[in-house]
């Protein structure tokens, strides 16, 4: 295809001339314009969230009568206290934490076992099994929803946290295996092979040697899983009907209905629901970036 070729000295000379004379100013201007553009995009991305923080600390009078961009006059932290104690928000919060943690642990352990068996052990059909997991990435959730609902109803798992934890695990296994796979393939096999020579059992090798070595990638996979599970909506909305089992995403959806005009309370509820993820991002942003990149594109 067309590539840029040096096609004669005169042109290169010209290029050098203009570079020497006008490039610095043009460059600096172009750089400035591009910078402003990038910052504007950043403002667009972040501003709605800042606005949310602002109105979560305001009284209704402030929200309705003053500029939406004004700082809260005296921040109403009681909005947060109110929604935390009044409704079931604290309960939803605990449910979200429980389901998220249970599913994350189960997913990362099961995915590690699969990835170990596929990359370290020798067997026919390993490519086929890997393919089965990977195709799972493409299945739309909605194409499975009705059978899952009716099966869970039949085996009495409807309105039961177990249905949520198992579904989260199944649907996150493919992407988790994808994240782990690259790391396992790049990991040197010498230590494991030496252990085999020394007569170690396969379980010993997996749990005592391989798993500790894959700590970094397990952490990455875990945090990506955590974000997905924490934010999940459709499964809980469909499978859970009791208030006592709902998670934050579904809970706030119902809860906010009661506060149609109390924007401060609505804002506080939303901030409570997104805060854990934002804090995790502040601390672990590099890991999250790496996890999203390795979980999305592989050849």
């Amino acid at each position: 295809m067309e590539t840029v070729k040096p096609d004669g000295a005169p042109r290169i000379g010209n290029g050098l001339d203009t570079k020497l004379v006008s490039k610095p100013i043009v460059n600096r201007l172009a750089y400035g314009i591009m910078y402003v553009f990038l910052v504007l995009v950043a403002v667009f991305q972040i501003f709605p969230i800042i606005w949310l923080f602002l109105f979560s600390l305001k009284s209704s009078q402030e929200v309705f009568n003053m500029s939406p961009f004004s700082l809260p006059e005296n921040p109403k932290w009681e909005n947060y206290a109110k929604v935390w104690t009044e409704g079931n928000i604290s309960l939803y919060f605990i449910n979200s934490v429980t389901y998220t943690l249970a599913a994350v642990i189960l997913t990362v352990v099961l995915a590690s076992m699969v990835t170990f068996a596929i990359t370290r052990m020798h067997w026919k059909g390993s490519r086929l099994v890997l393919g089965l997991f990977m195709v799972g990435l493409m299945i739309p959730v909605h194409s499975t929803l009705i059978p899952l609902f009716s099966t869970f109803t039949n085996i009495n798992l409807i309105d039961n946290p177990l249905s949520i934890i198992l579904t989260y695990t199944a649907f996150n296994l493919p992407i988790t295996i994808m994240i782990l796979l690259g790391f396992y393939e790049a990991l040197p096999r010498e230590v494991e092979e030496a252990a085999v020579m020394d007569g170690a059992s396969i379980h010993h090798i997996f749990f005592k040697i391989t798993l500790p070595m894959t700590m970094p990638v397990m952490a990455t996979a875990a945090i990506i899983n955590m974000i997905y599970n924490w934010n999940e909506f459709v499964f809980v909305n469909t499978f859970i009907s009791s208030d006592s089992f709902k998670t934050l995403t579904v809970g706030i959806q119902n809860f906010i209905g009661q506060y149609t005009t109390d924007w401060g309370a609505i804002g506080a509820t939303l901030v409570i629901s997104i805060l854990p993820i934002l804090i995790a991002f502040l601390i672990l942003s590099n890991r999250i970036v790496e996890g999203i990149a390795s979980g999305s594109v592989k050849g």
Partner: protein
Amino acid sequence: MNKVLSNKKVIALYITPALFLVLALIYVPIIQTGYYGLMKWNGIGEMDFIGLKNYKVLMKDALFWKSALHSFLLALFSALSLIGYLFISIILASKIKGADLLRKIYLIPMLLASVAIAQLWMKIYHPSNGMLNIMLVAIGIEDPPAWLADANLALYAIIIPIIWQYAGFYILIYYAALKNIPESLVEAARIDGASPWQIALKIKLPLIMNVIKVTIVLAVVGSLKYFDLIYVMTGGGPNGASEVMASYMYQKAFKGFDFGYASAIGFFLLVICLVVTYIIRRFTAANEDIY
């Protein structure tokens, strides 16, 4: 050594739990969806086998085709927005100070729950107290639209937060791919006198073509099955103006209790997603040998 590493019992032990979950909760259900699609069924009572009748009704269901059109519109806008993300990523990857911080800021919306994003944007679009209309009034537009309540605007008003939500994701992917290009290739072109735009278009883009292909599939298929913001923000309304395939299916199943018909929609959705994936892959495969 080979004996230990090819122990069939251990392999089965390590693979089976995960494989069982994926088969039982993903693969078996899609087969069941295909089967239920041939039934008349309210979800509780007896199933009646009616053959392809659900699909015949589906073909003539104007509301479904309207929602399918909306899904494809969303896919089109998502795919077009990729051009913008590529543009941003190319600038970002060309040694801009603070590029790392910027791309992290871009990513933040993607980390938030769709429900929270939906609630937040409902407040932004609020006809009288929302940030958007207050700004519009401030710059002299006296009668700003009602956005989500306006049948002509609702779909587009939802597409904006969807793009807002995923922008950082695609920028991150492109940025990572661009950073992987060996510096020597770019340097060689620069010495040969190529302008930055020539370098971007003729060297960098072809080198990340595979990544671009994957993102096209992700954006298009992700849009075709999109559900969350629409369900929360408008429920497909007003009057079907923002209905998409997944929200239509959900409504038929869990509000209309027409599980047979909803299963037919669910199966159709699956087929569309697989076919579109195949077509995009096929269509873009011709570019494979560009470098």
